[in-house]
């Protein structure tokens, strides 16, 4: 509604230029440790951006503090590297003020779930249309290796020489519990999958939350190797695909079946079960999403990766604009003169 902002900014919703990944890379040297999983996330984001068909100047990356939060410096878009934990709150303010922008958050497990946990649950609850990439390396990288709220119990780090005693968050369950409408998980070592997730997140109307397992090869090397390496991945990961049965295993020989509300592993090889017995994923089903997310730390089950939930719910910034429009249509566009002169007035001659 504001003409001054409209007059300087691009009002088009679609890009007129065809971009390449390179167009999204800034002139800054990337300074993550060699071998860090963050490189892959940056590469996949830059690869997906051209496909989104959004004018580059309308894209904003916002981050907090952490290795992962250096992300905006490397994107040739608008960017804001802020303070620890607050990226989601800054992003909320920006998106509410400027619904025309495509707003992204790059955050870490510490930044997004520890110091910024409060803002995280509230952005999800409000369903502000912001895309959140949570780089989960299960460690505090930037501060050189303390345990994080996603570190496994018993984690030995500099700050927990006898092992951590607290239970980790499962970010997907947390996001679902907070009312997240798009909740997904991906892997730094699976570029194709990550690209799909990023694209889906961008298309989703409402808050999108992607937890990306990211290797910190300096302070928590190999945390996800069982899930990402060729030999072990097939038996340890089950990919969630809408409308498809949950099959996994090196030879696609295993599946997930629901026993009551509990997922169990069944064999497709021993003749006891067929593909028709398996749980079929439905990314619109929020109850199912909770069940699937809850598989996460169960040692008996493969780790679910993919989209847990993609559902529709009104967006905060859209509802707010509606209220403004309706106030204007009911009361007329505000006139300052009238406002100042409202209430009981009197005249002194």
């Amino acid at each position: 509604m504001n003409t001054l902002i409209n007059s300087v900014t691009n009002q088009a919703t679609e890009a007129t230029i065809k971009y390449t990944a390179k167009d999204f890379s800034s002139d800054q040297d990337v300074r993550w440790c060699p071998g860090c999983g963050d490189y892959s996330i940056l590469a996949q984001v830059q690869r997906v951006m051209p496909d989104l068909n959004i004018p580059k100047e309308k894209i904003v990356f916002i981050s907090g503090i952490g290795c992962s939060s250096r992300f905006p410096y490397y994107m040739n878009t608008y960017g804001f590297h802020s303070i620890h934990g607050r990226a989601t709150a800054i992003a909320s303010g920006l998106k509410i003020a400027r619904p025309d922008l495509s707003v992204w958050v790059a955050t870490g497990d510490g930044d997004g779930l520890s110091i910024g946990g409060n803002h995280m649950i509230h952005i999800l609850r409000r369903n502000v249309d912001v895309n959140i990439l949570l780089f989960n390396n299960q460690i505090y990288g930037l501060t050189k290796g303390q345990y994080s709220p996603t570190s496994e119990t018993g984690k030995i780090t500099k700050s927990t020489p006898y092992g951590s005693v607290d239970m980790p968050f499962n970010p997907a369950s947390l996001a679902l519990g907070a009312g997240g409408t798009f909740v997904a998980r991906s892997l730094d070592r699976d570029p194709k999958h990550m690209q799909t997730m990023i694209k889906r997140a961008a298309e989703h109307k409402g808050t999108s939350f992607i937890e990306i397992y990211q290797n910190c090869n300096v302070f928590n090397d190999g945390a996800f190797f069982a899930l990402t390496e060729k030999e072990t991945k097939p038996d340890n990961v089950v990919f969630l695909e809408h409308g498809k049965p949950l099959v996994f295993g090196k030879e696609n020989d295993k599946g997930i079946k629901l026993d009551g509300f509990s997922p169990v592993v069944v064999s497709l090889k021993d003749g006891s079960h067929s593909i028709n017995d398996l749980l079929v994923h439905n990314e619109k089903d929020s109850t199912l999403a909770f069940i699937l997310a809850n598989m996460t730390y169960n040692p008996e089950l493969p780790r679910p990766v993919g989209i847990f939930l993609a559902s529709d719910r009104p967006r905060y910034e859209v509802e707010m604009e509606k209220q403004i429009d309706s106030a204007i249509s009911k009361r007329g566009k505000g006139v300052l003169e009238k406002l100042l002169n409202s209430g009981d007035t009197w005249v002194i001659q």
Partner: protein
Amino acid sequence: MEKETRALDEVTIRFAGDSGDGMQLTGGQFTNTSAAMGNDLSTLPDYPAEIRAPIGTTYGVSGFQIHFGATEINTPGDHCDVLVAMNAASLKVNLRSLIDGGIIIVNTDGFGDKNLKLAGYTQSPLSDGSLSKFQVFQVDITKLTNLALADMNLPQKVVDKTKNFFALGMMYWMFNRTPDNTIQWITEKFEKKPELIEANTRVMKAGWNYAETTDIFAVKYDVKPAPLTPGKYRNINGNQATALGFVAAADKAKLPLFLGSYPITPASDILHELSYFKNFGVKTFQCEDEIAGITSAIGASFGGSLAITTTSGPGVALKTEAMGLAVMVELPLVIINVQRGGPSTGLPTKTEQADLLQAVYGRNGEAPIPVIAASSPSDCFNAAFEASRIALKFMTPVILLTDGYIANGSEPWLIPEVKDLKDISVKFRTDPENYLPYLRDEITLSREWAIPGTPGLEHRIGGLEKQDGTGNINYEPENHHKMIKLRAAKVERIANDIPLATVEGDESGDVLVIGWGGTYGTIKTAVERKRKEGKSVSHLHLRYINPMPKNIGEILAKFKTVLVPEINLGQLIKILRDKFLIPAVGLNKVQGLPFRSIEIEQKIDELLGGKQ
């Protein structure tokens, strides 16, 4: 009997009763009527801290004080001349603010055994002689109200709710006020409930007639209109004025207004007010905490809004880190602190000025932020507008200090003409040619505002130290020192952009009283009284605390003694001593209450060497 009328220059009345007795409404009506009759005035509500305190107890007492006159009125009054007490507890709580010889009007029905006990009286103050130094008028308001409505068959609850209008009617009679304004208000308010229009109007008239016809009241008082500047007025409290100031600033800046906030007493009313102005496109975002309040505002500012965040002391503590971020990224932002009693949760509903040093210095690192203060309820409008102007022109966060006293207090406001408000419109950068995020204006040293959505100006900002111009991260020792000094110099340059300070009274003399913020009216009253006595004393009130106007040092040098009254243990005085190396004298009281003019007068006398 023909009754005597005496003329008065000024009067202070306090309406007090149980929270359910409608004292705020009664006071508000008396205020509006007095304003319409041309008096100058100032008012202050006194709410109980508890939301629904038990009926009849001292902590459930709600009060409303109005000071009105035929002369200029600057404070809600040190003491009251008239106390209307609807029950025993309200008498107990408020008696100490009544002057000797003052008038007490009590509702005797509120002094039954139960009420006396709840108020902590062992015997009735109405009969034990303890009120002998006052003029006490005992009226059974409850009974008279019931009589007035006897034929209407209204539920008792409804009848009880009208008795404040009986008290109002009596006060209108006593102070020669017309009831017409209130009748009109009742008629509009209860448009859809004709029986309530009838009941309330009838009870008010009954109160008026009772005072007119019984022998109890022998004297009525007349307070003539004050010589006010001609123009259109409305009554306004500080929080309303603050809210309007920002709507006006956004309008004049041609920007949308964004408020990120978390509720806290006594600042919440600004959020409430602004959330109503949706048709102005105002976006109010009630956040999960104060940190989100300020950071969401920083996000909105990045996007090109006039962004503000409202809070009180404890909330400022939470916002501190983000204020440093705003300093680093050099985005416009106004942080409003409606100060209350601290530390910690302190005295949430009481006033204080103890957050000044927090505002000026309370951040990690060298993080200079301009600080300005509002001096009265209606001045909050100008202060909010000015804070916005500075924030936008200098691309900086600005702290606006108000306090619980002026936030809730109200006074007549000469409504400004929109065309007389400054044009503070901004220019966003659009030219991609040679754009660098931290290129600076030579005069103001402010960087340009380039908002997302502008083609070709994609850039990154952040809280890490940066190189000037490019904004690239930079850890060089010399660069850091340079940037620290640049950010400080930018704030210092605001001194070139604000008016010189002016002294009220002579420009030199024996005593200069310097204040800031909500003590304005009290200091002004004290200084004027002393000047009438021929004392050599002047008043300087600071709107701009960081940076200060350029002539402060010059002014200070012209007085023998500088007195700094503050509702803290001495904060502005520290800054003055530090900046100007003067042996200023403090007057400090931290009781959750405003100063009384008399306290300042006494201190002035003391400094002038007793009773000269």
